[in-house]
């Protein structure tokens, strides 16, 4: 059984020109860091893995999750979570509403869902924040909510698109640790895209450099 995230001979081309090529495996609970300057195709890679690649690009190779080929599944059926440097909390929903958006509908009952959300908030040190407006949170608090929203959706892998680069130095290490610890605890394969060496070494896994 091939567990984890497998990127099998992935290559992305635009008008016949290869934008990037990659062959890699990320085991559950491990972090693979992809580094490279802007324009090296990092965000294109993430788009390909999530299934949001612009139709102008051509993708060859396969994306496998725990052995299942998800290359042609729509984003919503892949169960791959993604965190950006902007937390992208939905501004019209409360903090609790954001988490509820991530919580699968298979968890039934108003009270049960509510209880799960309250517990999730407690886990990230934001007890009682359910009714807050996300715009009133600090950067670190937003990052934690975004992480928890992704985790509640029960993903099979987690992609990180420079998620720490907006945070100040003090928060940064804290949030980074939290993300990696949670991913490890849930045995999620993690793909981290960054241009920060410190992120890479904190991740502790393999590092792949993309050329410009």
């Amino acid at each position, binding site marked *: 059984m091939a567990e984890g995230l497998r990127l099998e001979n992935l290559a992305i081309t635009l008008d016949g020109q290869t934008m990037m090529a990659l062959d890699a495996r990320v085991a559950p609970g491990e972090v693979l860091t992809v580094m490279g300057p802007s324009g090296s195709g990092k965000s294109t890679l993430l788009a390909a893995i999530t299934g949001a690649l612009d139709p102008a690009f051509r993708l060859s190779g396969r994306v496998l999750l725990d052995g299942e080929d998800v290359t042609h599944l729509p984003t*919503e059926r892949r169960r791959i979570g993604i965190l*950006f440097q902007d937390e992208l909390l939905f501004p*019209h929903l409360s903090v609790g509403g954001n988490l509820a958006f*991530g919580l699968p509908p298979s968890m039934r009952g108003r009270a049960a869902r509510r209880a799960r959300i309250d517990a999730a908030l407690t886990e990230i040190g934001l007890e009682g924040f359910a009714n807050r407006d*996300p715009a009133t949170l600090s950067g670190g608090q937003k990052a934690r909510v975004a992480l928890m929203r992704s985790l509640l959706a029960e993903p099979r892998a987690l992609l990180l698109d420079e998620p720490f680069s907006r945070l100040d130095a003090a928060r940064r290490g804290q949030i980074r640790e939290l993300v990696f610890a949670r991913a490890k605890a849930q045995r999620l394969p993690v793909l981290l895209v960054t241009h920060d060496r410190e992120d890479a070494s904190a991740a502790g896994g393999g590092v792949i450099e993309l050329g410009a």
Partner: protein
Amino acid sequence: MSLLRRAPALTLLVMLGPVFAGLAGTLLPAFGILPALGRVEPGLMPFSELAAWPGLPRAVALSLGTGLGATLLALALTVLICAGWQGTRSFRWLERALSPLLSVPHAAAAFGLAFLIAPSGWIARALAPLLGWERPPDLLILQDPWGLSLTAGLVVKEMPFLLLMTLAALPALRPGQSLATARSLGYGRSAGWLKTVFPRLYPQIRLPVYAVLAFSMSVVDVAMILGPNTPPTLAVQVLRWMNDPDLALRLRGAAGALLQLALTLAALGIWRLGEIAVARMGRAWIETGARGSHDAPVRALAIGAGALSALAILLGLVALGVWSVAAFWGFPAMLPDAFTAKSWMKQGPQLLAPAGDTALIALIATGVALALVLACLEAEHRFGLRPSARALWLLYLPLIVPQIAFLPGLQILALVSGIDGTLAAVIAAHVIFVLPYVFLSLADPYRGWDRRNALVGHALGASAARVFWRLRLPMLLRPVLTAAAVGCAVSVGQFLPTLLLGGGRVQTLTTEAVALASGGARRVIGVTALAQTAAAFLPFALALLVPALVWRNRKGLRHG
């Protein structure tokens, strides 16, 4: 899914189908074919009858003159205001006044202006003590034979529209940078703006300008209120023929409608030639390197004219308001002897039914248009469709083809198929004109939405439909409601589609108001025109209020 993919095609059909059907319906009778009257032999008789009408040369000249004049003035004012004042405090004040000015229906604005400039209007009353007038001066200001008051009415109403379209196009051109560069080279503000920003701006506002030109040449309601009577503009005369109890006159009317179309095309051609000439002169002017550093008089003129034009509409509304509550009001007095609610008590109940129909038509037409526009934009998003420049032309087509050219044909088709005089026919006709405005209003905010929100939603397991209903629509509540308000205001202001497709049996506040044009019942006009304005204004107020209430606890959406 497949239904959504067909949304753009369906939208075009709903919007342009009636335009072409209507043109065909005008074409046949213009060449003598009207089976309902037993005319089946094609011929040029309608055209020779039209040519024999003694008022024709004057009516044609009026249409061309007022249309070209009003467009030129409105555009020149818009451009000079932007050139001289963009980025200043006065400019922001004007920007804020824009939306209320735009929402005032044409007919109400025209009545308001009439109440100001008539021989017994507020301006004459203000001058009376100075000039020793005891009675209203014997001047033919309103409905003057030259169409000057008509032109003025068109300018004050079309300038805000052009200004709005300009403001929408400007940010992408980064005018601040260009202007700063030009000024650092020693150019005056206006000259620098005209030389560096305007040449890039004009292609962006060309279609709105064409729409203003076509509209100004063929407008009916404003021309009935402010335009001359003997002869009137061609469009008004065509309407008279079309509404004549003598059905045979419809053939002549159809020929006139076709002539109106040809005139519009000719005017657009003239305008295009003018564009080329101005571009050539402009290039030469830019190459002279003239700095134009003393532009204070031009700037003063521009802001003065702009403020005057805004004031004309606002004071006009005040005049309507005062007349609607006036008891006896003798000539030189600035205010009535006393105020009374009598006119409202008397007219109010009679306006309830038209107000209800106005609201019903506006809501359904806007609802249909909004659904189609949202489906188009969502299809664009989901299927990665790229809108072409041609698509924009198609969108403007119903605004450029004169209403009077195709609505009579549509009326004849409705008559033949037996749906004339129904609310459904009127609503369908309103959708033709509501759709482009709703689309223009919503497209930019819709396309500007951060697509990563959709990606995050999908990554959390949400389907495309769930992302649309739960994320995109709520986050875009404000622009969606604004687009709906624009749609409602457009529908409320429609005169010709209501009159022709309604066959006189569907009455709205606008048809009621315009019907008063020939009489002198000022108090009734005041009440009706104000009710019409309120009907157009209310949706805008709601579009501001509802998001502010719904999102009162959501800081992230307060300025979205």
